């Protein structure tokens, strides 16, 4: 039998605010336990939540970016359950009335573009963490994360393969960073994903019973966990078994999913509107303000890069993969005064390779945009050859100064003076009579030998275009 996979994703994006969603405590990652939790976060008797206006702005920005309805009125509800790292005994979330509903995201797969529906996105607070190491048999509680703002983004079950799920996640990941609402750091848990996975016989209209996969915190694990789970469900169904509705945990070390709790064991969360928080009411003016401040989105930027700079779809895609990279590219163009293709080649080539090698982010590049532009200007005006430029770049990366300084210090200025090149070419021809004879006998591939010899003799500084031109003239019988 042929099977079809059905996937829906729930993403928790940590919103990039300085303070928590309902308290003034800072949200910075990695502080000593409980140093970023105040009486509100620790749910002391008598404390009350007060909504951070910035999270509302961010949720609205997201809603508008995915073409969703941003509700003028939404409601915070309490999700009640007991757990030691949940200080109030309930999580403040949005349930019946989320702030964002009915959006969509277009993803690109090898098969083409596909639109994935986004059911809803709602605001909620994160819980704390339980600590089991170095606790002498006890469990410790760290409330630094308690109250960190999250936007939970729930997709429709529109994805049909792990690859589509990953494409959706990556598109969403790019979007939230473009919107500057989430740092997207998956290691630190700023962008977390749960996957609802089911299979059904191809052609069947009804959905199969789904399992919810948790703890899949990298793009690679998402793909692996879904693939494992699909295989498990197909094997189960093929052998006459049934899929149980349950929550399963992905174990990346063993590359498998394991049952965590069944539907029967699930909590009755007793949701009800939080009486401490009035309904969240947005005005038209507020939404207009958010709309006006909307940054250019990835799709629009990609299209503009293609059209405005004449870039290939591939280059435009790479350069707009993050807002920072696109910004860097445009900063280079601005400083270089043009040369969009040359700049694209350098940013996606040398620079990307060097960043990757050193594990650096574009914002931490050792060669800033104006400096790279300085080098590109020297390539464009013929001061350095493309080959020498790579050496200049390496020197710049090593901190030896700007392009002009490196070129001067290392004597890499390209020789474009015809008579000087002609002098070198004459010497090369004179030194290689055998090859000259071969060339004149019609072995044209010997030409590259002469180019190489000439470049070598000029220590790479001869302008290759001129070398070609002069060689052709002087080699001619």
């Amino acid at each position, binding site marked *: 039998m042929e099977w079809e996979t059905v996937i829906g994703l729930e993403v928790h994006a940590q919103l990039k605010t300085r303070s928590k969603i309902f308290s003034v405590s800072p949200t910075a990652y990695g502080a000593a336990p409980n140093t970023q939790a105040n009486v509100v976060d620790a749910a002391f008797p008598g404390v009350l939540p007060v909504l951070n206006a910035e999270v509302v702005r961010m949720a609205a920005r997201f809603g508008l970016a995915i073409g969703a309805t941003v509700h003028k009125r939404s409601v915070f509800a309490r999700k009640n359950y007991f757990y030691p790292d949940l200080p109030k005994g309930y999580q403040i979330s949005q349930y019946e009335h989320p702030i964002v509903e009915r959006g969509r995201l277009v993803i690109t797969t090898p098969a083409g573009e596909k639109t994935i529906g986004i059911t809803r996105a709602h605001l909620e607070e994160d819980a704390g963490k339980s600590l089991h190491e170095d606790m002498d048999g006890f469990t410790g509680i760290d409330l630094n994360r308690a109250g960190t703002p999250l936007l939970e983004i729930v997709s429709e079950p529109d994805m049909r393969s792990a690859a589509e799920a990953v494409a959706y996640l990556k598109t969403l990941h790019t979007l939230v960073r473009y919107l500057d609402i989430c740092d997207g750091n998956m290691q630190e848990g700023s962008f977390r994903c749960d996957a609802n996975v089911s299979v059904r016989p191809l052609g069947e209209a009804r959905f199969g019973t789904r399992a919810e996969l948790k703890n899949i915190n990298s793009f690679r694990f998402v793909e692996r966990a879904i693939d494992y789970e699909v295989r498990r469900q197909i094997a189960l169904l093929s052998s006459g078994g049934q899929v149980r509705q349950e929550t399963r945990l992905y174990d990346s070390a063993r590359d498998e999913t394991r049952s965590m709790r069944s539907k029967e064991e699930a909590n009755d969360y007793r949701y*009800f509107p939080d009486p401490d928080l*009035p309904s969240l009411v947005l005005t038209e003016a507020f939404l207009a303000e958010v709309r006006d401040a909307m940054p250019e989105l990835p799709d629009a930027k990609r299209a503009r890069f293609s059209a405005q700079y004449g870039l290939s779809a591939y280059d435009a895609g790479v350069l707009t993969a993050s807002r920072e990279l696109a910004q860097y590219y445009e900063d280079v163009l601005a400083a270089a005064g043009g040369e969009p293709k040359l700049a694209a080649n350098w940013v996606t080539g040398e620079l990307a390779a060097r960043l990757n090698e050193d594990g650096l982010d574009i914002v931490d590049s050792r060669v800033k945009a104006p400096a790279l532009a300085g080098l590109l200007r020297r390539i464009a005006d013929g001061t350095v050859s493309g080959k020498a430029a790579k050496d200049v770049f390496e020197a710049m990366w090593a901190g030896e100064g700007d392009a002009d300084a490196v070129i001067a210090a290392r004597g890499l200025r390209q020789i474009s003076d015809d008579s000087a090149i002609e002098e070198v070419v004459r010497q090369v021809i004179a030194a290689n009579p055998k090859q000259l004879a071969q060339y004149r006998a019609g072995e044209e591939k010997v030409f590259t030998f002469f180019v190489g010899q000439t470049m070598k003799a000029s220590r790479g500084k001869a302008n290759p275009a001129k070398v070609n031109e002069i060689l052709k003239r002087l080699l001619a019988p």
Partner: protein
Amino acid sequence: MTLTITKIAEDLAAGRCSSRELVDDALARIKTHAALNAFITLDEDAARRDAQAADRARRAGGAGILAGVPIAHKDIFCTAGVKTTCASRMLAEFVPPYDATVVRKMKAAGCVMVGKTNMDEFAMGSSNETSHFGPVRNPWDHKRVPGGSSGGSAAAVAARLVPAATGTDTGGSIRQPAALCGITGLKPSYGRVSRYGLIAFASSLDQAGPMAATAEDCAHLLAAMAGFDERDATSLDAPVPDYAAELGKDLKGLRIGVVAEHFAKGVEPKVAEVVREALREYERQGARLVDVSLPNSAHAVPCYYVLAPAEASSNLARYDGVRYGYRAPEYQDLEDMYKKTRSQGFGSEVKRRIMVGTYALSAGYYDAYYVKALKLRRLIADDFARAFEQCDILAGPVSPSTAFALGAKNTDPVSMYLNDIFTIPVNLAGLPALSLPAGFADGLPVGLQLIGRYLDEACLLNAAHRFQQATDWHARVPAGI
């Protein structure tokens, strides 16, 4: 002897007494009347120190009317460094690291806190018998209850241990004990006073307010307590009137709505008669009585006993033994720790309400109970809105009876709950209401309830003040006081 804040302020200003003397006197009286069990915690050293500071500040000039006045806070308000128990074993040793906004504001106004008053556990009760620290006794008859849940505050003011105290009112917890103890108590409009630092019982109903001998004193206290608080999203961002300055307007033409349902069966005839006589006094002052009806008020008690426990079941989830408060000494695992901690830490009435509330919010029951109760709440509020088209304030008894005997109702929750039949609808509608002494029935105080339009505390305070200028019920004190 009725020592009002107004009188104390005059004496202090004239140098006839010092704040230190007042505080020493209050502490001595609290000890003399220890049998009332009105206090859970005294903060003697700090009170004396603060009183001396208030005296020094007064000499430096610029002191407000509340500067140096001894007061008590209900033990539901968090006080930095001073035990705040909510009359529960769960918080019997809990010392908050911060002051409730009400506490902070009253401190800023110069009030000197002498201690924390007894109450029903987590404010759940109408007789002060659910306190982990034992019941409070009614100063008018020690065999009777003072009402609840702010019973300690009411008894302390009635016995003139302190001139004023704070209370909280979720379904009548300021007004009913004020009535049963013969003092004046005001429940402000929902949102008028910050709830920050007030240990939550039912968040959509809880409201803090003043309890004192007179409406004039309540006016001064409310002005100090009220106002927007950025720490409470449900507090109202509206200016606070100078309530005391608005006292004294005559009542000619004031339309007083007499609620038919508040004089129906179940009200002790002698209580009804005292209230009617009070209404005649209003007529003598030129007010006009208008018959009004609140047809849905019969549903108020069941509606309240779904909503308040539902909110409470969630609000009290934080008492889990993990971070502060009581934790069972022995347990097997996490779940056992939760169960034992909460079984041992909460009293039976609190547990009853947590169970009821949890049930009402459960899947499959939510619509039948919680959602339906919310609809009723709207109908009840609409009743008030209609009544206020015909009148300016509403009047009736606070409670169907006078103070009942200790132990008389604490085995029958429903009969206990019916004590609040006239006060509960007001909380459901978020309106302000005031209880003032209207007379006596068989030697026990009877309270008159005045209910106002949203945010119209000034009208209630003025109406009560005018009544108190023509009567002396508020000045009567129990024998031996």
